[in-house]
């Protein structure tokens, strides 16, 4: 194909054809005055949308990086030091006591379930943060706000709206004193 033929083909390939396919000179005045190249317009708008979506993708990646950094920082955070929270004789069997561990935390609940058995959990219900109360006779912890129930031995939800277990406080009994030694988040 000669040079002229190639140029004319390029013109047809890269030109918008009016809806009725007549030449531009035969088109109405408004179309001659504002010959919008619709195909080019669509190409540009899609190209800009691709760019915007890549920007959104970058935002999601940054969000993921933030979560990963936060989880790494939490892992490296020092384990709180053991804290004496009660004496063994202070609580009768079935009795409970609130404490804060580590200091400044949300309220925790220490429960004596047997002569030498203690359990401790975060007192906030995992549903809507109402305080839970021990129901020793049912071997449960009860949230009266929305009738949520947690197993007393594991902290796992057994009935009602809560979906996640209560955070468990690790305990250590030495001589006559009960120590809080760590926190295990409920999942």
């Amino acid at each position, binding site marked *: 194909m000669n*040079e002229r033929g*190639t140029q004319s083909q*390029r013109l047809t*390939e*890269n030109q918008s054809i009016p809806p009725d396919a007549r030449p531009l000179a035969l088109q109405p005045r408004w179309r001659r005055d504002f010959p919008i190249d619709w*195909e*080019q317009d*669509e*190409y540009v708008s*899609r*190209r800009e*949308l*691709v*760019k915007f*979506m*890549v920007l*959104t*993708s*970058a935002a*999601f*990646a940054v*969000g*993921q*990086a933030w*979560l*990963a950094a*936060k*989880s*790494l920082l*939490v*892992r490296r955070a020092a384990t709180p030091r053991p804290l004496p929270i009660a004496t063994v004789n202070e609580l009768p069997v079935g009795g409970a006591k609130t404490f804060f561990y580590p200091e400044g935390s949300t309220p925790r609940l220490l429960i004596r379930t047997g002569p030498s058995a203690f359990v401790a959990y975060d007192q906030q219900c995992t549903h809507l943060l109402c305080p839970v109360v021990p129901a020793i006779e049912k071997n449960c912890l009860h949230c009266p706000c929305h009738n949520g129930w947690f197993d007393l031995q594991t902290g796992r939800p057994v009935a009602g709206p809560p979906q*996640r277990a209560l*955070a468990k406080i690790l305990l250590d009994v030495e001589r006559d004193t009960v120590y809080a030694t760590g926190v295990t*988040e*409920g*999942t």
Partner: protein
Amino acid sequence: MNQRPRFIRAQRMTIVNAMLALVVLIVILQLWLLTATMNAYLGGDRAVALPSAIASFVCFGLNLGLLRYLFRLDESI
């Protein structure tokens, strides 16, 4: 003599449409990944945060590659 463009306009339009579909698919995957990771993280499962961040960056890398191709496509006009 002018160099003939690599693709005619109709072809470029098809390419950019396909690219847009791929990018949107990857972004939806990233959105799902972020939602699932956030759900696990708030539920106390922090082990998934790092692998999903790596996966999300791989997705972003794919999108950047597609964007680079788009710029090259524009240059070829």
